[in-house]
């Protein structure tokens, strides 16, 4: 899951980015409205955490432009103003949620998870594919009732695949939603992680769940063995 944090106050932005990265999200950051729009244009962010009071272009203007561009990203507004009118304005302009400063980071995290469930249309916090269970809130994975130990990157990849279960996701999708821009997109990092993930969740005698579609990408689904 890729997030964009837009906040002009540097200490707060740094801590938000750190906290979200440690929660295994890919995070981009911006300190003003224009940079935020530049980042968001690709539409690859699942959630944009957007402060309202921003230099150059305020948060509500950013939100309006995103909605005009029909950006698929969900927007969580951060606001220091707690009047009902501010909340109403934000929500009516197309924000998906809001949080009033000062907030508790755990609440921000919980709202981010809720927005991700909403985006991928999953009501439950546990995603099930055959006997594979991905507990999104507890961030743990079980196969056939037995826990599977995954690294943060592996988990993020599996959660993304699970949210898109039954759909083919391209390498580029995975790249954009799961990883920070630290490595070159040309590398085969995605294939390497898919390989590691397969080793950990595939069990002998059980059906394969991660399928490769040549030229298209990967698919997490329960399928008839051919």
């Amino acid at each position, binding site marked *: 899951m890729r997030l964009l944090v837009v906040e*002009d*106050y540097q200490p707060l932005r740094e801590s938000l980015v750190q906290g979200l990265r440690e929660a295994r999200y890919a995070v981009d950051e911006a300190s003003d409205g224009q940079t935020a729009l530049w980042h968001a244009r690709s539409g690859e962010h699942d959630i944009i955490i957007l402060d309202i009071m921003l*230099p*150059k272009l305020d948060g509500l203007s950013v939100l309006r432009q995103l909605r005009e561009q029909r950006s698929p990203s969900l927007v969580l507004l951060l606001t220091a*103003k707690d009047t009902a009118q501010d909340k109403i304005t934000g929500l009516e302009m197309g924000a998906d949620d809001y949080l009033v400063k000062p*907030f508790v980071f755990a609440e921000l995290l919980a709202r981010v998870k809720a927005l991700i469930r909403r985006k991928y249309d999953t009501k439950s916090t546990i995603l099930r594919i055959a006997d594979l269970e991905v507990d999104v809130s507890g961030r743990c994975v079980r196969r056939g009732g037995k826990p599977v130990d995954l690294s943060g990157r592996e988990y993020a990849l599996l959660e993304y695949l699970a949210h898109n279960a039954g759909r083919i996701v391209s390498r580029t999708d995975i790249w954009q939603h799961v990883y920070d821009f630290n490595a070159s997109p040309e590398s085969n990092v995605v294939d390497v992680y898919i390989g590691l993930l397969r080793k950990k969740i595939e069990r002998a005698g059980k059906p394969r769940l991660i399928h490769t579609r040549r030229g298209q990408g990967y698919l997490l689904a329960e399928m008839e063995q051919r």
Partner: protein
Amino acid sequence: MIRSLRLRLLVHTSLAAALMLGLLGAALYFFVRHSIEADFNQDLLAKAHAVAATAEQHGQTIIFDYEPDELPQFVTSDHPDYFQAWIDPKVVLRSPSLKQADLPRLPVTGEVVYRDMVLPDGRPGRMVGMSFTTTIEPNAGRNILHAENSRTVILSVATDTIALHRTLENLGWLLVGLCLLAVAASGIVLVWIVGRAVRPLERIARDIDELQENDLSVRLHPPDVPLELQPVVEKLNGLLSRLDAAFSREKAFTADVAHELRTPVTALLTTFEVCRSRPRDEVAYIAAIDKCRGVAHRMQTLVESLLLLARAEAGQLPLKLQSTDAADLLDDCWAMFSPRAEDRRMKLQWQADGPIPIETDPEKLRIILHNLFDNAVSYADEAGSIRIAAELRGNEFRVEVANTGSHVGAEQEKHLFERFWRGDKARAEVGVHCGLGLSLCQRLARLLKGRIEVQTAEHGWFTVRLTLPAGHVEQPAPSITAPVGSVAD
């Protein structure tokens, strides 16, 4: 003292109306009474003349020649009139109604005299006294008196005044009744008139009463405001506007303060929570602590600036003027910022060599300079230039602090002194300034009876000019040390 304006108007106008009506009634009464009495007297005199007309003189004899039915009221009436005639000093004739009684003989000297009296039968009455001269008739008749030539006869005629008194009494009561009616009617009319007159006042009072302290956007718009109340309404509306503006400013300010404090508080909370969420090494903990210290420092600056600003605006900052060397003060203040300026590889143009003796409040001036230097060092571009110039010009002390790399446009100049306004670029890149510095400087400059102006120019030069009165400090003579630290007022 009557507190109600309506009641006071009513009582006073009613009293005045009653007094006027009373006076009018009395005047009318006396006028009518005078003419009725004049008529009565005229009638009485006519009776006397009728009696006198019957007198005839035959030689020495005076004869009153009348038949009883010619003057019946003197003869056979139930309520008779009376007359009596004298030829001095003898009574020559009495009316039959008098019988043996006498009427008083009035001292007649040619004029007609009237007198109120009690008639012989006890009724109240009035008497007229007159004199006339008889004419000589050749033949004698009855009632012969012997006289030579013409004789002067004195005649008193009396009649009762019962009808007169009754008429006057009726007139009096009629007028009293009419007056009371008129007073009552005018009272009712006055209640209505006064009510109409004070209605605009009551309407305004009601409008004022309906004003809510939490909604000051309402203005008084009473219809048909009388001219006398126009200034009151205008003044009130003006006052409301000013109050409204002040409260709105205060509200916006409170919201700004809340916003400015909420963001750093959120930063502190988030940093603590993220830091605490898992075990970390010492370096990470120290970094988090340093970050929080920086945030807390910003909050402290904000709170102190706010307090200073609030005190300055409430007039709670005492002014302590003293002789000061401004060049020294500039030097001292700059010392705090020169390391940061060197870090950012800035070029400094120093044009403030002293001594520059002025009389001012050095603590306030220090706060202003601190803010100006801080802004210049923070907002100048990397490796840019800063120019600090100070001079005495006439009675004015002038400091200019300028820096390059400004992104403030001419259209933004007017916002610079607003609380919590920050140039966008500055805000994004520095993030430690709370946006109170310049408004605080402006407030303090005003306190020092000076002014502060900003100027944007080509090539990103941004200049703040502080002008203060130099005070009454004599230029120090070269041989004498300037008095330093002496308190002047």
